[in-house]
Every structure is written in structure tokens, then in C-alpha cells.
């Protein structure tokens, strides 16, 4: 079990270790902070005891001297170094963590780019995004919470046990072992105990979200049918299950904290008794007898960081596991053949089953012929698999049964990026990036000039609108194109398509969100632009399509056997 936990974390630890030098400097700074705390308390205790004993001698009229300057300076130095090293440590380590975050995001993103379109389009997008970002955030704390603190604590234990052993070897050994066992209990032991509950936490939070969304979506039905109270109770039961797990984790952490305090403080007392006995046997001086237990006491600060971090071990591993999984399912393998000129596309009895819904083929036994230059419309009710056909033609998706060929070559054997360069696909969803109008357009052809951009904007009837924007072409479009209305955003994606100049054009609900007048204008633009290209246009009925030569109505054979 443990082994597999580490296996799960390995790729992410490896990423951590790329910053090896930074990590060690960070740990060194943390160790300096702990060392200063130990030093401050230790030297102070030594100093007070030494002065007390010297003071007694002086009071008794016995001549005695004590160098007060060196310990005094030591105390001041440690007081200062504790503050400074702590400040530097926090700053430096946060810098490291932010660097790691950048690496994590880049790595995760890079992996995501290799996922097949099927995976990305069919996962419940919002839930998945939430989870992805929070999982990545969980992992960026790997270093600061799980990696560095145990190492620093171990260093502290070695330092303090070594210090004791200088004077009392056996006591040093016993205390060192005692603290080492405590360290293992607070890290490995706690992680093991709370692993399951903590791993379930994010899962249950996600479930609560899903059920809450369902509750809200079904509010009409639940209210009308009079089952709202019933469903509310169910939701509350789920909340309770979550809360139970949460308090379980908190309980484990609280117990570990109690154990930590007891372990450290009893080590202080044991050291104290040993040193006091040693003092009375005249093995060590009085100041040393006081100094050593105080050194143990100062370690408490380092140990206090452990329980909270390791109580959430399970959650961290679960996050890493999910992120590992995201990259596991069916990658889309690119072929190597070059894309044929003027391809004749053919879908031969294709079937598509998405991994998440194996029982429900999204498309079965579907055949479609697209000779080069033909214009085909595909209509039918939503959910019937039209967009799946579009994905197949674009090459974003490979069928689970049947074949998709381009001029007799299976599409899967053709170099993917070369094929995609030929395809202009306007997806059902309007995808704009929160950047300038220009950079959204330039996606299609990075080398296009401003004149060309204005030209395509003119074609979709957006030029006057963009000219009135404060930054014209450089105006940001807002998140998801929020600065633009749905119809305007739709036209912007169309302009992007025009700029790309593809051989095969796929339009999925091209006129959604457009009023009739605008739609007619765009129909005319397309009429000029489309000749010489293959068109596959998709809509719920033919009125939502540009002019086509053939109309295919789905279901040709429905996705599921129907009762008639």
C-alpha cells in the first residue's frame, strides 16, 4: 500500500528534484531557523544558570569570574538570526513553491495536450476543471508541507541528540532514539491512520457538489411533486457523511498533536532528570545540566508542523493519483502518412463508445460519404450524435468500430497535425481566449497581417464594432469572450475560420445565437467562400444551415434500439 503511494508521488517528486539546489537552500534556511531557536533558548538557559551559580559564590564572598560577553553576544546573535533566517526562509521557500507551481501547471498542461478530444469533450467539464486546478494546488505544497519539514525535524533531532551526547553519550542516544520514533509516528504513522478518511474528503466534497447541482436542476420537479423535503434530507445525509470524514481527519491530527507535545515534553523531562543526576554525580556542570533539556524543548517548534501536513497525506496522494490518471486513458496516436490532396472522406459503419458510458454508444452503424467539394448538411435532434460525427471527420476522435478513410487511407494513419491543418472546424461551443481580438484571430494563421484581420472581420460584419472598441484589434475579449454577445463571439470564431482557409469545413450549429438578418448575411459570405471546399454542416434542422447539396437526417439508425 505504502509502496504504491510513493509510486504515485514519484513523477511529482521527480519534478520537485529538478530544483535540487533551491530545495537544499530552503531546507538549510529552515534548519537555521530551528537551530537559532534551539541556540537562543539553550544559551539563555546556560547563561542564567551560570550567573546564578556565580552570583551565589560572589555572595558567599568567594572570588569567581564569569565571561558575560560571549554568551550575551550569543543570545543577541541568535535572537537576530532567528528572525532573519525565518524571514528569508519564508520568502525563499515561497519563491520555490511558486516556481514549482509554474512547473506543475506547465507539465500538467503539456500532458493534457496529448489527450484525445473524446476525453476532453465528454468529461463533465466544470467539475473536472475544478478538480484539476485544486489537485495541482494540493501538489504544489508537496515540498513545503511533506518534503521539507520531516527532513528539518530529523536534522534538529540529530543536532540536539548530538549536543547531549557530547556530554552524556548514553542519554544522547536514548533521547535521539525516542525522538526518532516520535518523528516516525507523527509522519508515517499518522499518514497511515488518516490515509483513507483524508483520501475520501475531496471525493465526497465533489459528490456533494454533484448532488447539489442536481437538487437545483430538479427544483421544479421536486417542488411540484412534493418530494423536496425528501430530497433535502438525502442531501443532508450526504453532508453528514462528509462531515464525519472531516472530523475523523481532525481527530487523527489532534491526537497526533497531543502525542507530539507529550513526546517532546517528556523527552525534556527525561533529559532534565538525567542531567540533574549527572550534575549531582559531578559529571557535568550546572549550566550544562539546564542547557540540554532546553535544547530539546526548542525542537517542539519543528515538530509542530508535522501532524497537519501528514494528516492530509491521503488527500495529497489521491490528488496525485487523479492527475496521473488524467494522462493515462487512450492517447490519440498520430499517424505518419502525409495528408492526401483533395481528400475523399468516407465514414464506413462507424461506432463510437465513450469510455465513461460504455453501455451507451454515442453513434452506431453510421455511414457517410463526403467526396471532395461536396456540401452536406446533417440534421437531427440534439444528443443524437451529430457532433460525434463532426469529431470523427475532424480527426479529433477515432471510432471504436468501423473506419474513417480519406481517399482510401485510414484517417488514423495520417499525420494528425498535417490533417488538422487542412480542417476548419467550428465547434458547437464558442471558444475564445481571454486575450486580444487579434491574438484570438491569429490562432488560425499567426503570420496574418492586420489588413487580413480587418478583412475577415468585415466579412462577418464585426469590423465596425471592433473599430469602436477602445483598443481596436488589441482589445481583450474577456473570459470566454464575455465582452462580446453570444452572436458576436460566434461570428468572431467564424472569422477565425475564414482566416485559416481550410480544405474541409465543419460547421456545428453555425448560426446559433445569430438573428436572421445576420445569419443571412453570413450565408451569403459563405456562399462565396465555400466553393472548392468540402462542407459538413450540422444543425437541428435545415433552417439552421447554410445552403447544402445533400441533407442527411439523423437518426439514420438511432443510437439505441427504439421501441418501434
Amino acid at each position, binding site marked *: 500500500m505504502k509502496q504504491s503511494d510513493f509510486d504515485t508521488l514519484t513523477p511529482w517528486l521527480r519534478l520537485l528534484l529538478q530544483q535540487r539546489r533551491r530545495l537544499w537552500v530552503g531546507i538549510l534556511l529552515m534548519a537555521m531557523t530551528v537551530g537559532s531557536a534551539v541556540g537562543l533558548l539553550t544559551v539563555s538557559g546556560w547563561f*542564567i544558570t551560570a550567573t546564578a551559580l556565580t552570583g551565589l559564590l560572589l555572595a558567599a564572598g568567594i572570588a569567581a569570574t564569569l565571561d558575560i560577553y560571549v554568551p550575551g553576544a550569543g543570545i543577541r546573535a541568535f535572537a537576530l538570526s532567528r528572525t532573519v533566517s525565518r524571514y528569508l526562509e519564508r520568502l525563499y521557500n515561497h519563491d520555490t513553491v511558486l516556481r514549482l507551481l509554474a512547473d506543475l*501547471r506547465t507539465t500538467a*498542461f503539456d500532458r493534457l495536450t496529448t489527450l484525445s478530444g473524446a476525453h476532453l469533450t465528454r468529461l463533465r467539464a466544470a467539475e473536472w476543471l475544478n478538480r484539476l486546478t485544486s489537485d495541482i494546488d494540493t501538489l504544489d505544497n508537496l515540498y513545503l508541507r511533506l518534503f521539507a519539514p520531516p527532513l528539518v525535524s530529523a536534522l534538529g533531532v540529530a543536532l540536539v541528540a548530538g549536543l547531549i551526547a557530547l556530554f552524556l553519550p548514553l542519554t544522547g542516544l536514548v533521547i535521539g532514539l525516542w525522538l526518532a520514533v516520535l518523528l516516525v509516528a507523527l509522519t508515517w504513522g499518522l499518514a497511515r491512520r488518516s490515509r483513507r478518511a483524508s483520501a475520501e474528503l475531496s471525493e465526497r466534497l465533489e459528490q456533494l457538489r454533484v448532488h447539489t447541482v442536481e437538487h437545483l436542476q430538479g427544483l421544479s420537479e421536486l417542488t411540484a411533486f412534493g418530494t423536496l423535503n425528501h430530497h433535502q434530507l438525502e442531501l443532508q445525509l450526504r453532508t453528514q457523511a462528509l462531515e464525519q470524514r*472531516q472530523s475523523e481527519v481532525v481527530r487523527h491530527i*489532534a491526537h497526533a498533536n497531543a502525542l507530539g507535545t507529550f513526546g517532546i515534553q517528556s523527552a525534556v523531562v527525561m533529559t532534565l532528570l538525567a542531567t540533574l543526576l549527572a550534575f549531582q554525580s559531578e559529571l557535568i556542570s550546572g549550566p550544562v545540566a539546564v542547557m540540554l533539556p532546553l535544547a530539546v524543548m526548542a525542537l517542539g517548534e519543528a515538530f509542530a508542523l508535522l501532524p497537519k501536513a501528514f494528516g492530509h497525506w491521503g488527500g495529497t496522494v489521491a490528488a496525485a493519483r487523479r492527475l496521473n490518471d488524467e494522462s493515462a486513458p487512450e492517447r490519440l496516436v498520430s499517424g505518419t502518412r502525409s495528408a492526401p490532396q483533395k481528400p475523399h472522406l468516407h465514414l464506413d459503419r462507424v461506432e463510437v463508445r465513450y469510455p465513461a458510458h460504455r453501455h451507451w454508444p454515442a453513434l452506431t452503424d453510421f455511414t457517410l460519404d463526403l467526396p471532395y467539394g461536396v456540401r452536406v448538411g446533417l440534421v437531427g435532434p440534439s*444528443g443524437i450524435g451529430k457532433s460525434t460525427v463532426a469529431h470523427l471527420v475532424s480527426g479529433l476522435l477515432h471510432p471504436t468500430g468501423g473506419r474513417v478513410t480519406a481517399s482510401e487511407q485510414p484517417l488514423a494513419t495520417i499525420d494528425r497535425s498535417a490533417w488538422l491543418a487542412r480542417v476548419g472546424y467550428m465547434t458547437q461551443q464558442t471558444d475564445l481566449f481571454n486575450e486580444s481580438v487579434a491574438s484570438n484571430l491569429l490562432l488560425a494563421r499567426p503570420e496574418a497581417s492586420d489588413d487580413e484581420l480587418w478583412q475577415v472581420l468585415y466579412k462577418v460584419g464585426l469590423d465596425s464594432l471592433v473599430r469602436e472598441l477602445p483598443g481596436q484589434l488589441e482589445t481583450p475579449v474577456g473570459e470566454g469572450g464575455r465582452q462580446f454577445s453570444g452572436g458576436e463571439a460566434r461570428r468572431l470564431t467564424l472569422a477565425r475560420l475564414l482566416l485559416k482557409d481550410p480544405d474541409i469545413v465543419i460547421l456545428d450549429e453555425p448560426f446559433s445565437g445569430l438573428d436572421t438578418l445576420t445569419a443571412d448575411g453570413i450565408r451569403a459570405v459563405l456562399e462565396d467562400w465555400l466553393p472548392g471546399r468540402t462542407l459538413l454542416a450540422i444543425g437541428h434542422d435545415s433552417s439552421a444551415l447554410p445552403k447544402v447539396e445533400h441533407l442527411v437526417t439523423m437518426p439514420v439508425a438511432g443510437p439505441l434500439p427504439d421501441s418501434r
Partner: protein
Amino acid sequence: MATIDTSDTRSDVTPRRWLDAQRRHDGGAGRRALLAGASNGLFILLQMALIAWLVQSAVVQYAEPATLIWPALALIPVLLGRSLTQAWQETAGQQASQRVRSTVREQLLRRWAELGPVRLAGSSPAGLASQMVEQVEALDGYYARFLPQMWICVLVPLAILLLVFSLDWLAALFLLLAAPLIPLFMALVGMGAEKLNQQHFQLVQRLAGHFTDRIRGMTTLHLFGQTRSATGQVAAAADQYRRLNLRTLRVAFLSSAVLEFFASVAIAVLAIYIGFGLLGYIDWGPATELTLFTGLLILLLAPEFFQPLRTLAQHYHDRAAALGAAEQLMRLLASASEAPVERKATAAAEGNAPAVDLRGVTFGHKGRNPVCTDLNLTIERGELLALAGPSGSGKSTLLQLMAGFLQPDAGQVTIFGQPAGEQPMAWMDQRPCLIQGTWAENLRLTAPGASIEQMQDALRKTGLESLLNTQPDGLDTPLGEGGRGLSGGQARRLALARVFLAPAQLVLLDEPTTGLDAVSEAHIIQGLQQLIAEGRTLVVATHHPQLLEASSRTVRLELPRPVSEEPGHETE
């Protein structure tokens, strides 16, 4: 049970006050956490005193080892007490937070029920659900850690100060000098944390936005062959975020460094003062009476004097997070509340009252022309009434009034002689809610007690039986979320099966056949006729000629102001 606090409706409610008002739901657990934390402080005092005493007797008085046994043994219960109170504070704090969170969740559910499906329709379910999940969770640290610690932060240092004062007033004066600085520290730390939090949040959101934007548009990036350059952009944005963020952190960490500095300096100053006092270099004030016991005890207590404050500083971001969440939550929860709508599942039809009776009903959506003015409409039992008219003429609104989702501005809507919304009815609209779960769970959503046979029967009536027979586990087969895998028509037929399963006599249907394939359409129409045959009353908003034909009466609504009632097709 919590009620929505009407006193919260005053406009001067700040997020801070709202948070404090929720404290009464913690069932005293917050107070227990405080008690535990305070006793923890006392145990620390005891422990340090015993240690100092042991050192004094062994080192100064050369006491026999045997006499040290009792104080050493006394340390065991003290250490146990210290550890256990620490754990107790944590668990009690968690309990307080959990109770408050679960009450707030209950309030949210109740509020949503009060607002009803129509008024909530403006907000996205995902956004509302994040209130239920993230925002409520953001309250955790405030009640579990911050609030108890805030009081401990006053009580424990005060106790230490009093003890040190009794030992050596001059040393106490050093601490006291630091004490007025404590509020200053807190303000400093607070300002730093707040600033950190605000800027940090904005930055995080901007970066997260950039990142999710790229992921959401991944298909587009693929289509335009831009994934490689997008990876570069993600890296650049993350790096920019890092540099901006560090600039903030440099300042924010400074405030806690000041706290750290004063704590360290106080220990250093005390150690040197005590040392010089013990040497007899200071021959005035209480310094002459210092012993190793008092000196060591003061030294040991000095870090503990500052510890609660350092802990509080660590929890400061909990407060900021809770305040942020409270601002959002109170906006929904604190608005005026009406009596919750509860439907008695068994309410029976009364006497001979008509199925639906609208008397002088006037209703208008804010800022728009009224949908209906002084409308009178009576629907007898067993009728199939069709509501026709162009989109936007108020067909759906009329159905929502009958369902009790909306209250009329004037007039009265009664269903079987009772005000609308008091008894259950069957409802079906164009986008039936399908949940992630099995067929059975989907059907039992609105009919919790339905038996297997009843469900199979209902599915047979809507023509879904053959589809059910292809399912590997029958009714226990999971249905794809959001009806994925079910066609729109099949989903609609599943919703109709729900109507068959419900005992309600009044059935309200909003465009049940729009946009359907021919097979599903035929099944739906057949099903509606079967419902009529069962003696139920149907009100249908529709354009469908066949349904209009089958109706006993048609009410035509017009734009922008209805209302003219015309006798429709009397088909009987």
C-alpha cells in the same frame, strides 16, 4: 432547527457581524475550545514552574535525588493534561465549525426552497452549488481555529504576565512594554495578511483563469495546431504570477517578521537582565531578589507569552477567507424570508372544487409588461386544457403560477380548493432533470415509494420498456448524467413515466413535445391520452396540432398583453 434570522435583514449587517451571529449555532463547542485552550495555558505554567523548581533544588540546593522524585512524578499528569487539552481544543473547535457549517447549509437549502425554481433560474446551478461546497467550507478555519485563538491570545498572556509580575515586577514590565505592542502587531499582521489575501486572490484568480481558459479551449488549440505555443504561454503566465506575488509576499512576511523579532528580543533582553541580576550587577528594584527558580521560570515563560499571538497570526488567513465567503452567503441568506413552502404529500382533493381556479389574477415580471391582468380561468376536473400562443406570451408563467412557483401580484390561484403550492402535482417541462444514478433512482426522485412493478408499468406506458430490456442490470443500470446516452425524446418519456408514478391529480406540462423525434412524440401524446383516461386533469402549454385537437379547450395567449379566452375545440 435554525431559522433565517430576520434581524439580519438590516442594511448595516457586515460580514463580520453575520459571522458572529452564526456563532450561536455551535452548541457551546466554541466555548469548550476556549476553555480547553485556557487550561492548556495553565498546564504550561505548571510544567514550567515544576521544571524551574527541580532545577533550583538540584542545582542550587543540592537536594537528595530522592526528594526530586515527587515533583518529577507530578510532571507526568501535568504533561498529560497539557497534551490532552491541546487535542481537546482542536476537536472542540472542529465541532463548533461543523455545527455552524451544517446549520448554514440547512439555511441555504431552506432559502433555495423558499425562492423556488423560477426565482433561482437566473443563477447557475454550478455557481449556487459552489456556495454550498466551497463557501461553506471556507468558514471552517474561522470557527475551528481563529475565534477560540483570539480569546486565548488575550487570556494566556495575561495569566503569564500576572505570574511574572508576582515573581519580578521589572521583568513583567518588559513583557508589559511589549503588550501594548500586541494590538499593533495584530494590526500589522492583519494588514499584511489582508493585503496579501486580496492581491493574492486576484492574482490566483487571474492565473487560474488563464490556465482554465486554455484547458477549456483545448479542442480549439488542437484544431489550430497551437498546443505547443499555448504551453509556453501557460509557463510564462505562471512565471509572471510568481514575480508579482513575491513582491507582495516580501511586504506581507515583514509584518510577521516584526512579531518574530519582538518575541526573540524579549527573550534575549530578559535572559540578559536576569543574568546580570543574578550576578548582582543590578542592585536596585526586584533584581536583587532573583533566584535561579524565578529567573529560569521567567525565561521559560517568555516564549509562551508570545506563542498564542504567533499562532493567531498563522490563522489570520482563515478569517479573511471566512469574511470573503460570508459576504457572498449573507447576500442570499439575509434577504427577507417568507414562510417556507411545504407540501403535504398526502393532501387530498377537497369536495367538488374545480381542479384549477384563477380569480382576478394579475402578474408581471419586474420591469416588463404584465403577463396577465385580472385573469379569470376555471379548469374542471378531467379536462385537458391547452395553452397556446407565441413564445413570450406567458404560457410558462401561467403554469408556474398554477404550480405555486410564483405568487400572483393580485388575485388568487386555487388548486382543488386550496391555495396553489400547498399540494403536490405532477410537473414536466422541456428539460427534465435527470440525475447521475440508476433508472430506479431517477424515477424515485419524485416518487420515493415506487415499487419495481410500478416503475416497470410506468415505463411500459411511455414506450421505454424495450429500451429498459436492453439494460444489463434493468432498473439498476446507471443512466448517463444529464441524459447523455438517452436521446432528448427518451429523456422526456422518462419524465412522463414520473408523472404516471405520481398520485397527483393535476398534471402541468410545458411544451412536452417540442423538438422531439416522431417516435417519442407519438409516445408522449399517447401517454397524455392515457392520463386523461385515468381521470387526471391536464394543463398543457403547446403548439402541437394533435394536442390542440385532443384538448377539451384552448386558451390563446397574446403578445404583449393577454388575455382573451376563446372557447376552443370541444372535442367531446
